[in-house]
Every structure is written in C-alpha cells, then in structure tokens.
C-alpha cells in the first residue's frame, strides 16, 4: 500500500493546499478514501473527471490533479450525465453533499439512477448545510436543533441509500467516515460496476453541527452506534433507526446509523442500451434508404 505522502504527491494539487475544510471535517477522510480506491484500481488520472455541485463537499475536485468541474447547486449529476454519455471511456465521479443531492438536486439524482448512467456518486452526508452555517437539511434527523429549526426539527429525514435502491441503482452502500476500509472497498466496487453506483458516507460537521464535544467523540459514536443493514431495517425512512420518535424531542437521542451494502445487482447501463439503440437506428436507416 502506498503511503499518504506518495498518494498526495501523485494525486493532489499541492498549490491549493491546505484545503479550506475546518479542523475535524470528514471531507478530507473521504478524499483520502477515494484516492486510495482509485490508486488501488490503477485508473489513469487522465481518464478521471470529478464533478460536483455546491457546498463544502463539492469543493473536493479542486484539490485533485485530474479533470474536475465544480458546477451549480444540485446539478452535478446532470452535468455528469452529459460528460459520461458523450465519452463513455471516462470514469466520472460525483462528489456531493446532502443539501446538494437531496434538496435542490434530488430529481437529477433519481432520474440518473433510473437511467442507470454509469457514474459513481459519493455523497458526504453530514446532515446539515455546513457551508452556510448549519441549517436544516433533508437528512437532518428529527428532533435536531439547527439554525433554521431552533425549536427542533419536526421533518422526517430522507434515507438516501434506500431511495437510490428503490429508484434502481445497481450498487448502493452506506458507511460513516469512521469506516475506512469498508468505504474504500465500496468506492472500488462502485467504480467497477457498469451503471449507477451510490456511496453514502455519514460525516460530521464539528463547527456547524456541534452534537458532540469533539470530533473524536463523534467518530466514536460512528463506530459504536451503527446497525448493520438487514431486512429488519427495511422500512426506515431515515439513515438512522429510532426506537421512539418522542425521545428525539425529549432527550438527546441520536439513534443508530444503518450501515452496510444496501444493494448490489446487475443490469444493462444506459451506455450498453444506447449502443444497441444506435445499431437499431442504423439498421432502420439503411433499410429505409434501400427501398
């Protein structure tokens, strides 16, 4: 295994270091996991395109020595669609956050899943809008206090990985930033699948979502308070399992995060089917032309 400094030298833009991320942020870890996955798979740097929208996680492509495109809020997957469709040889990776993906960009996400566009979407879900100061996001668990839910959040959160599965994604996994090996393996798996793969990584925002005393305590929570994905948790609407919603409002109750590989199936990608469509259209053209 290559050392961090070797990987850094090869894959990161040194002139942009240090990153803009706050101390304790999970984005650096996700960058690390992604780079390790790419290096393990020996994907040439010229073949990579990193696409992102708006938010802290969307600033990641700037730091990588590869083609990158930091687009508009929520639209990263739509940009990625155009890039991948017209050049299927590229490995297209989208970095997004929960606000970018699940609020303003949810439709683009689900539609790309439905089309089975061959891209890998890495969603760093810190359950808040970190960049703008910690507002309520569509994945903020019920009962949380944020700057826009001062009297505790009364909206139920999205379970993004389950949504992706329901829409037809061929590979879905959820881990936390504390699960390094699992995350790296899932990113590798996602990159090797032909079709839409979704890796959701529960992360922290120690600056704007101060649930824990310090990042260490947060990581400990990630390691200790998880529940492996199984049929028993199939009905959960959020990324976390709560025994009693009332407790979310009355006590400082954080629930358990559902982790694991959520789905791993095979079906033809958009590109496979487009290839067939092209053949059909050509057949029809020359047949009509011959008449």
């Amino acid at each position, binding site marked *: 295994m290559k050392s961090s400094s070797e990987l850094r030298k090869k894959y990161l*833009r040194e*002139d*942009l270091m240090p990153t803009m991320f706050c101390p304790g942020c999970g984005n650096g870890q996700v960058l690390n996991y992604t780079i390790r996955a790419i290096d393990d798979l020996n994907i040439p*740097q*010229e*073949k990579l*395109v990193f*696409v992102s929208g708006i938010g802290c996680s969307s*600033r990641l*492509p*700037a730091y990588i*020595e*590869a*083609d*990158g*495109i*930091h*687009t*508009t809020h929520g*639209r990263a997957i*739509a*940009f*990625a*669609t*155009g*890039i991948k*469709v*017209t*050049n299927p*040889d*590229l490995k297209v990776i989208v970095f997004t956050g929960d606000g970018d993906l699940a609020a303003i960009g949810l*439709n*683009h996400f689900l*539609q790309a899943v439905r089309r089975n566009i061959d891209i890998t979407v890495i969603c760093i879900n810190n359950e808040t809008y970190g960049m703008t100061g910690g507002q309520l996001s569509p994945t903020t668990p019920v009962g949380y206090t944020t700057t826009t839910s001062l009297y505790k959040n009364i909206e139920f959160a999205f379970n993004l990985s389950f949504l992706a599965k329901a829409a037809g994604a061929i590979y879905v996994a959820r881990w936390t930033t504390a699960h390094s090996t699992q995350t790296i393996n899932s990113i590798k798996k996602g990159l090797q699948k032909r079709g839409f793969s979704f890796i959701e990584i529960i992360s922290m925002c120690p600056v704007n979502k101060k649930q824990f005393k310090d990042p260490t305590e947060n990581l400990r929570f990630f390691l200790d308070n998880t529940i492996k994905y199984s049929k028993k948790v199939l009905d959960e609407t959020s990324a976390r399992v709560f025994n009693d919603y009332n407790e979310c409002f009355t006590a400082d109750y954080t629930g358990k995060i559902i982790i694991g590989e959520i789905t791993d199936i095979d079906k033809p990608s958009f590109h496979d089917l*487009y290839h067939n*469509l*092209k*053949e059909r*259209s*050509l*057949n029809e*053209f*020359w047949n009509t*032309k011959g008449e």
Partner: protein
Amino acid sequence: MKAPSIDEILEPKLQFVTGNEAIVYGALLANCRFFAGYPITPATEILELMMKYLPILEDGYCIQMEDEISSLAAIIGASWNNYRTMTATSGPGFSLMQENIGYACMTETPCVIADIQRSGPSTGQPTKAAQGDIMQARWGTHGDHYIIALYPNSVQENLWLTIRAFNLADKYRVPVILLSDAAIAHTRERLKIPFQKEIDIIKRVPVTIDKENYHPFRTGYTLPTKVPEMDKFGDKYLTYLTGLTHDWKAYPSTENAEIHEQLVKRFYEKIADNREDIIIYEAKYIDESDIIVISYGISSRTALMAVEKARTKGYSVGYLRLITIWPFPHDVVYELSQEIKRFIVVEMNLGQIYHKIKEHARGNCEVDRLNSIGGNIPSPKSILNKIKSARLSDEIFE
C-alpha cells in the same frame, strides 16, 4: 454497421419544411453531435428530430432530460468532451436555464441554446408567437456577463444562423442564443439544404502550449485574442473548472477584487473587440430616408412589406433588420439617428429593443414604436398607418 454521412441523411435538395426542422438540419451540418432537451411547445419538434437523427450519426448522442435545467447542464458538460452541443426550449424553459447560462459564461463553455419564443409571462399562450425574451436573453442570468444572440426571420435563415451560432460559440467560448418564435418555428417554407462541404466550420482555439505551462484561462498564447485556449476532458491537460471567480489557473479566488474584475471584464472585452465579426444586420433604402422602421424576426417580414408599400406611396422610409441582437449594433443606430427624423421600432412585445434604440439615438431623432402581443404579427397595414401618423406618446411603457 457504417454510420451515414450527414449528406446521406439530409440529401441536399430543395425542401418544403418548418423553421424547427431547419434548425435541426443546420445543427447537424454544423457538426452538433449532442443534444439534450425537454419537451415544450413550440420547440418540441427540435428534440424529436434530434432523437431521430443523432443516434444514426457517428458519435452522435441525444438524451431527453428531466427538465430544462438539467438539459443545459448536460450540454455544458458534454461540450468539454470537444462536442458541439445544443438544447432548445421556449420561454418557461428558458427561464429555468438562466442559472446554467451564467455557469456557461463563467466557465466560457461553448454551447447553443435555441429559444423558440411564445407568449408570456409564465405559461402564457404556448402556441402563440412572441418576442418577449429579448431582454431575458441578454440579462436573464445574474451578474455581469456577455452572451451572443441571433434572430433569423425565415426558415432558410434558421439553417444558416444555426450554423453561425455554433461557429460563434466555439470561436468566442460563449453560450449563443438562437432566438426564434412560434411563427417561424411552425411556418413551412422553401429550404435549400446545402452539402456539408459548403459549410465553414470555425474551431475552438486549440491548446498549443506544453502541459507544464498550460493554465485553463490563459489567453494570448495560441492566438492574440482574449479567448482562452480550450482543451477537453480526458486529455493530458488536467483542467479544473468552477463557477466561482477564478484566476488564470482556474483556481477559486473569492476574496480578490482585482481577479474578479479582470475575469469579468474579459468576458465583455472578448466580445467587444470582435463586434465587427459578430454583428450582422440587413438595411434597405436607408440612404436619405426620413423614417426608418426597425424590426427583427417574424415581424421584420411585415415591416419590410409596409416599408415597400409606403415607398410606392411616396413616403421617405427605410428598413433596418437586426440579425445579431446581442451584442447590440449601437453604432449603426447612432449613425442613422443623426440622419433621420424618426425610428419606428416594430416588435412583438411591449417594448424591449425600443429602449435600446432610444438609448443609442441619444435624442437625435424621435423614436416611435409599434407593439403587438398575444401572437398577432403586426400587419403591414398597421405599420403603414404608423409610418403615416405622428409619434405615439403614452407614458405607461416608457
């Protein structure tokens, strides 16, 4: 199976087709090989025909997206694979595209957007022609930026200006808006389809510098213009793009006023320096005329009929048709304003280009207007009456 050439598909000959078909043929002849769109009246046929033809062409792709926002996003992304890309829409969709038009301006991404205008605001009258998006085309997205907008007035010109739109987009690395309207879109006229060898294709400024010295927003190396060289995704030049203010290395610079000013002023300069290349217009009978009727698009056709009729009746009247709407031909308007008594601006909105004419006439002559909304093309008779009568004065739309 072998992909046919564009000539094998279009079979160059005289045809009797609609304006929307002519836009598709123009795009295909201009080597547009990626289209992303969303159905909307009166632009839908463009998406339908692209879906028919692009899969047959080598490296051709077409996708129906979930909305107009993602349609423009997809073609901007694909443009970075060195594709000529296009989308088509109408007012409501054009409103949704404004966000990513700003992004295309900021990242200097070539792309073509056809806006087949219909009556607005909002859903308005979907099947009725209008010219209500003239100002939205120029200023629809936030912040200082520049775009190019062209407005053909016939089916044949739809074809040629679509080709021109792609050339200008690539040459100046800017989104180009092809304005049309429901009337031309659905009018059937004679169209002479050219062979592809008759088409001039102007390429993007290529990267000629070595990788170590390459920076995505460097200008003046390959060509002495203010248009940066453009690489593509998947090549050895690893490019980062952002909608944030960026320096010539493409690195975000969100605090520095000087870098922001340099960048945004260059968006203006790269167009302003080349106004002569970009601006085209049609002028008839303008020498020694007292009155000049100005129009564009479908209404310019009735305007010309009225002008010619008026001249047979002895009126001293000329005709100016704007073909490039943005950048605006202000020098032409200013020069004419010194020679004449009155401009009459004929348009299918309540006065948009009218204000530009007033601005650049600088009080040298009267500026009158004839407006028609709700899909009615101004009749030659109403324009003729306007030529005969005194200037309208009402303050509501001033």
